[in-house]
């Protein structure tokens, strides 16, 4: 009797071990590295870089790359484990997060780019108006022998400022907004000094006569 009970117990034990082994094999065959997610996340980062996110939102782009790296290392961490104990859930979640974040970073980069573009365009418009004012002052400035040479010199400077502004337009069209901003600010300073020079000359002209 005892002999039979022991045999039955051992049979059950062996069955259980086999069941676990089969379950383990099944489990292992399901725990595959998230290759698709990895490919998609890498592609998402490349697409984000293409929007110049690394230039316009560098900190966010860096965080995105960091997340991808963490996910890839987590995959390797799981690969290092015994097959029965591998789980790529955390890596997959991080990779999915990279995908979501990349959309956010792309959007933020586009917003920042638009802001810088708008700033450059606004500055360009302001300086263009300033140059128009300088031209109007040139027209009002005393004619004749009184300062004709000086007016010609200012006219020459206005032409140079305008050519500078043409370069700004080209830079804006090419998407190089930061350099465009530098250039337009420089042109603005020069245009302001020309305006002041003309206003002073006109004021002196008025004040010089009694």
């Amino acid at each position, binding site marked *: 009797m005892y002999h039979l009970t022991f045999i039955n117990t051992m049979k059950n034990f062996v069955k259980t071990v086999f069941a676990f082994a089969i379950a383990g094999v099944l489990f292992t065959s399901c725990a595959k590295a998230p290759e698709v997610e990895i490919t998609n996340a890498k592609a998402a980062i490349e697409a984000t870089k293409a929007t110049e996110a690394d230039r316009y939102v560098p900190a966010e782009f860096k965080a995105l*790359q960091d997340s991808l790296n963490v996910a890839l290392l987590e995959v390797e961490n799981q*690969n*290092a484990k*015994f097959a029965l104990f591998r789980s790529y859930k955390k890596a997959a979640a991080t990779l999915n997060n990279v995908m979501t974040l990349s959309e956010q970073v792309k959007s933020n980069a586009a917003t920042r780019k638009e802001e810088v573009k708008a700033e450059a365009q606004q500055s360009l418009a302001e300086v263009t108006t300033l140059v128009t004012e300088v031209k109007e002052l040139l027209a009002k400035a005393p004619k004749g022998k009184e300062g004709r040479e000086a007016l010609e010199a200012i006219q020459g400077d206005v032409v140079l400022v305008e050519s500078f502004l043409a370069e700004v337009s080209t830079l804006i069209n090419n998407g190089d907004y930061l350099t465009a901003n*530098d*250039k337009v600010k420089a042109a603005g300073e020069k245009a302001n000094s020309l305006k002041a020079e003309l206003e002073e000359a006109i004021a002196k*002209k008025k004040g*010089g006569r009694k």
Partner: protein
Amino acid sequence: MKKTLLILVVLLFFTVSTFATLYYFSPKPPLSSLEQCHRTIADAIEQEADKYAPELIKEAEIYYEGAREALTKENEKAFFLRNYKTVIHLVETAGSKASEATKKMAEDKANLSRSLLEKLEIVNHKIEHFEENYANLPLNKAARKDFTNAKLKYLESKKAYERNAFLLVSNNLDEANRLISKSVDAAHSHLSSYFEDLPKWKRWHQETVDWSRQNSAAAVVVDKFAHTCIVYQSGKETKRFVAELGPNWIGTKQFRGDKATPEGKYHITKKKSGKQTIYYKALLINYPNDEDKARYSKNLKNGSIPRKGIGNLIEIHGDGGKGINWTDGCVALTNNDIDKLWQFVGPGTPVTIVGSLRSLHEINGR
């Protein structure tokens, strides 16, 4: 049967124990080192090490990728056969390259920032110097164009510098430096020949001051370069006024209509006021004097000037204060200043007009 099962259980237990022990003591992948290394490289790139030390960053990235590949290869092996020494070596090399790149970037950036700042100051100094000494000179259009271009490029460089875009600054700043140096050189060369007459101007000035002292009378000296009209009483300077000249004031007057202010020793021949002048008040001088006439004849003979006449009616008059050189060759003062001068002078008062009382070296430090 019982014995067989017992052996199986023991064997299973032994296998599991051995497996667990081997697994426990097997080397673990250096994930934290890899993560840290990646951050070091990313930090370096964020600080523009990829622009200042591109080769080192490239090497760091290659070593890091190598470490990742080596890690994958090791993980593919049975756990008890894994050895991460190569991974650790590669990751350490990558980290060291990234740190080296960061250090090089920091040094290069600091050096570049310092040298650019120095260069910005040099160019700014040249621009200010040009504005102070040459901007109002009757220079040719090319020199003025170069100056304006230089200033625009300098301002652009300054803006780029302010946002730490140092690598963008260099080219524009070099161009600005080249243009402003060219303008300064052109102006300096133009003036150098003009200033050859400085000893003569100084002698005239001294003679005029001596005359004033010896005769206890007023004398007037006009320094064209300084745009100043100086009044001496008994050899001592008593008044100093801002003077405006003809637009082509560098060089003496050669002929009628050249818009140049003459240089020489003259005297007042007539005081004009009311309807006698259109410029509030005027002091007519005896241009052309004998020296002017001799020079005019000589230049006419050698064909260096047009046959337009020598010109006349050179005055010190009012209606000045326009801030530009606008006369046909006269010296213009503000109406307030001509009123003050009027009190000291009369017919016979010496009026000496010189190019400058200071040497070019004293003026611009070159």
